[in-house]
């Protein structure tokens, strides 16, 4: 399907229904312009033609009270036109509400003044949570909408969709994003003092990248929880090492010097090793510090280690596609 172009001031139409909505817009616009021009032209013509000339004595006009045929004509024609507009508009409207089967589902929670988007991760029961909306291109997406405080409304101008979020009720909307890219999403129902700061981005990505994102993002969230309970006493997240241990800020992908003088790139393998057998390779400067206790499988499962690595990647500027080795599937 073609993207409807950015015409006049309407933003680019980047969803499957945008084309239809835009056509309706232009149809009504041209009809309105024609109607306005005809009516105004008649008025102006009459004003010039029948204007009383200065100094002219008021001659008698025609005492015309009505004309039934004319009145019927100018009632029937607009009636036909507006019903046509109704039918067209309503067909598109129902299209916006009938959600295709097999749509990817995302749960949206609005609150003063932020958005939270939750995705299911495979069949794992875990969820992937973000303040921005990530969706695959070319596939119907269904958003389940709810609000935790006041009314909000979700609007993605480029997709031509909008729906209110109501506390204690679930509403929904769907769209199919046509092309990869970034789009704006914002709240259009007045929701209080910081209404003008309630916005998010929509990232439309290829199917594979989306799946990877959901997976990685879920790891990040779980990884953070593990970090908070098991790692945060020694490892900081700020720039600059603490006294106890190397910081995780920008750690993934960094080249560290070890206590024996060799260097190592901090990637999955080294992190795995440092969690299971921390004493084997110690970063230079930390030999004399308190030793980190090893985490065998009984206290930290393989999956949990993956989550920690996912979380660390999120803290790093290191680009995944530059990585020489793939993370474990």
């Amino acid at each position, binding site marked *: 399907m073609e993207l409807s172009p950015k015409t006049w001031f309407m933003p680019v139409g980047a969803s499957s229904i945008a084309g239809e909505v835009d056509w309706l817009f232009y149809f009504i616009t041209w009809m309105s312009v024609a109607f306005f021009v005809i009516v105004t032209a008649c008025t102006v013509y009459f004003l010039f033609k029948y204007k009383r000339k200065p100094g002219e004595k008021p001659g008698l006009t025609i005492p015309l009270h009505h004309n039934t045929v004319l009145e019927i004509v100018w009632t029937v024609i607009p009636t036909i036109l507006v019903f046509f507009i109704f039918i067209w508009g309503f067909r598109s409207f129902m299209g916006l509400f009938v959600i295709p089967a097999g749509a990817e589902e995302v749960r949206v929670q609005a609150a003063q003044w932020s958005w939270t988007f939750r995705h299911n991760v495979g069949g794992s029961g875990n969820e992937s949570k973000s303040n921005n909306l990530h969706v695959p291109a070319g596939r119907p997406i269904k958003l389940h909408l709810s609000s935790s405080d006041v009314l909000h409304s979700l609007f993605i101008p480029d997709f031509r969709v909008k729906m209110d979020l109501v*506390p204690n009720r679930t509403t929904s909307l769907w769209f199919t994003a046509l092309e990869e890219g970034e789009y704006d999403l914002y709240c259009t129902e007045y929701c209080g003092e910081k209404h003008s700061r309630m916005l998010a981005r929509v990232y439309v990505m290829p199917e594979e990248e989306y799946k990877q994102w959901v997976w990685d993002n879920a790891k990040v969230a779980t990884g953070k929880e593990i970090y908070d309970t098991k790692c945060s006493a020694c490892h900081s997240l700020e720039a600059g090492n603490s006294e106890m241990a190397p910081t995780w800020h920008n750690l993934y992908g960094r080249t560290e010097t070890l206590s024996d003088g060799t260097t190592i790139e901090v990637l999955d393998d080294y992190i795995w090793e440092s969690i299971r057998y921390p004493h084997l390779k110690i970063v230079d400067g930390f030999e004399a510090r308190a030793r980190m206790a090893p985490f065998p499988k009984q206290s930290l499962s393989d999956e949990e280690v993956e989550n920690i690595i996912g979380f660390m990647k999120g803290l790093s500027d290191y680009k995944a596609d530059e990585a020489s080795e793939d993370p474990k599937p």
Partner: protein
Amino acid sequence: MSTHHAAKPGFLGRYVFSTDHKVIGLQYLITGVLMAFIGGYLAYVFRMQLAFPGNSIPGFGELVPQQYNTFVTMHGTIMIFWVAMPVLLAGFGNLLIPLMVGTEDMAFPTLNMLSYWVFFLSTVVLLGSFFVPGSAFAGGWTAYPPLSADGYVGTPFWDGLGGHLWILAVALEFVAFLMGGINFLVTTINMRAPGMKWRRMPIILWMLVIAVLTFVFAVGPLIAGAVMLLLDRTLHTGFYNPAAGGDPILFQHLFWFFGHPEVYVLLLPSLGIICEIISVFSRKPLFGYRAILYSTIVAGVLSFVVWAHHQFIAGIDPRMSSFFSITTIMISIPFAIVIFACIATLWRGSIRLTTPMLFALGAIAEFLIGGVTGIYLGSSALDIYAHDTYFVVAHFHYTLIPVVFFGGLAGIYFWFPKFVGRTTNELLGKVHFWLTTISFNCAFLPLFILGIAGQHRRVFDYSAFPSLMAGELTMLRQIATYAVIVMLAAQILFVVNVVISFLRGPKAENNPWQANTLEWSVASPPPHGNFDPYPAVYRGAYEYSAPGRSEDWWPQDAP
């Protein structure tokens, strides 16, 4: 002949606590016009903020988000309830109804006086709310809960006294208009002069009666809704509180069940004014009197079943939307008919482009734009895109400004000689018209474009939205703001014209426009008690250019 003549009231009784419909009408009119300047000032402040975010505003200072929300809320509230209603309905209704039906005063003069003073009290309460701790209400003029109903967990933002006072002021005002409305109905139904049959009434009387009936039927649910809101705010009941089993959508239904008919309550009196003026200055009978009348009745009835078009995306059943979409689109047809009728009245007339005529014609041209853009919003798929954007803001300003300001000013210029007894300056009036028209279009056409570009409403500043900060959109916001300033400044001409004409304008004749309706048969200004003796009516209001007469008008009361 009238009990009014018995006692000579003093200054207070004559001009302040007067029971005379003309004084009360002028009180409503003047209060409304003064409130318009307050509403205009608020618009100036927030338009400056939108055009030049973060800058200090000349004549105000720096605006913070909460003040912005208060100003937007109060601008809407004041312009609809404290300008449009008192000027169009209460002002012109009081001035015109007893004179046009041919009687001495309203049916219940004391109730009428009470109506104005309750309205005055509501005005004091509303303006006073600016000065309470936390300032005036900031929940939007539509006051949607849960935001407007403080006390719910998670919404401790609007717990000021301002919100209570806002509800109180609106409720008081509706009480005032109900008292006035009863007078309008009883006077028109029971006190018409002999011979003033229903079909002979000037169309504006019909419009006023239908407007009042619409108001009276619609206002109950809103007052109920407002009381529940007040209870939620003060006693922490749970009518709209989801956590207590309430439903915030309920308020939207109650509000718009009133809110949409309200638009027609304002529109009808204004259309009446426009019809009268166009007929008089075309020297022709109003074209299609009956068609206009039936259209108006149809519109009045339809106006009760269009409200949910405000809620297409509020989570109502989409099948329900189909019904409201049909009715919304249908309601444009009666108004198209009225406009066609006005234009047909011009055909083969002998047209004089006086100031009132210019404002009446301007109102029609601008209202056309408001009307056709309503079709975009009635078309449900497009409404989803346009909802809560500046397209809607532009649309309703293109309906309300022609109706309230152009129609209202047309009426003021038209009847000024009658009720003040002096004539306004035509040149000043025409300059006022052209400046107002040009600046109005420059202020609000850009808002359609901004809305189409996706700019949403009630936003303090757009700096967080890169797509809305594009150069051409920023420029459009600034053009709109400059135009608003010109538009407000142009109203100084109106004030100057009115004040100078009031003090030393040329004395007006009884019937300066050679019009037919009864008010032009009495002195300018009409004396206390209006008619002596009572008039008798022999014909309809639009016998212009009747064949066989030397004059081209034929007053209703001329034998």
